[in-house]
């Protein structure tokens, strides 16, 4: 998205402001998924070192999902360039509604990822406690 579309101006309408907030939020989702990619590599290394590779398959599956979702969000981000061409409320509302759908997808992805991480940490704690 062009930089000019990320700046907030005093003459912006409510709709402009909402699109800008959504753009900024979308960038944050992308940054988070990029971090998740890095985090998954760490978790695989820890699993190999302490849990004899348990969870590695789940993490690899998550890695693939992450890759697909990241591509989807990047393509959605590119499609938002055409917001500036919206001429009626219907068009603006379509973008706003799309954003809420992507939010649901992102939240769903995070919830699942968190569940796997919770199980992983639980197992890690158990393995470490039994070692002591």
């Amino acid at each position, binding site marked *: 998205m062009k930089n000019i579309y990320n700046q*907030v101006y005093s003459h*912006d309408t*409510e709709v402009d*402001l909402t699109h*800008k*907030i959504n753009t900024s*939020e979308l960038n944050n989702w992308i940054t988070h998924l990029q971090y998740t990619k890095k985090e998954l590599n*760490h978790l695989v290394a820890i699993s190999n070192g302490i849990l004899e590779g348990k969870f590695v398959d789940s993490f690899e599956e998550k890695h693939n999902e992450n890759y697909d979702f990241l591509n989807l969000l990047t393509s959605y981000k590119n499609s938002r360039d055409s917001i500036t061409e919206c001429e009626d409320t219907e068009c603006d509302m379509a973008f706003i509604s799309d954003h809420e759908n992507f939010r649901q997808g992102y939240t769903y992805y995070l919830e699942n990822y968190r569940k796997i991480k919770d199980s992983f940490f*639980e197992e890690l704690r158990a393995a*470490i406690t039994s070692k002591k």
Partner: protein
Amino acid sequence: MNSTSSFTIEAQRKLFIKKDLIALSHWIDELEALDNELNSLKHLEQKVLKNAILSQNITTFRRKNTLAMGLLCQYEQVLRTEFEYGKAIYDVKSAKLHEKKQNEYLCIKKSFMLLKDLVYKLLETCKRN
């Protein structure tokens, strides 16, 4: 004609506040989840890593996170009141405030990522005996 237009303005105003409330609710959920994750990191630090600096960093971070959650909950109350009873238009001031809150949330998330990286790097050096 006038009443239709004021209805539209009010409907839009509520829509934009509602949208901010949805985003905010996601941030609060995220910080809560982050607090749970912190429990696991704390446990690992105590049982395996035994690193005093890391322990201090975890404690400091937990304080920051709790404070940030409290501030976001306060902001949620402000938005809910505005949604129910407010009359103020949704303008640059509202957007800037939301942006400021978003930056505070992102700052916490970024600190947590750095903290996690530190724990992961230390854990990666551990091997099962």
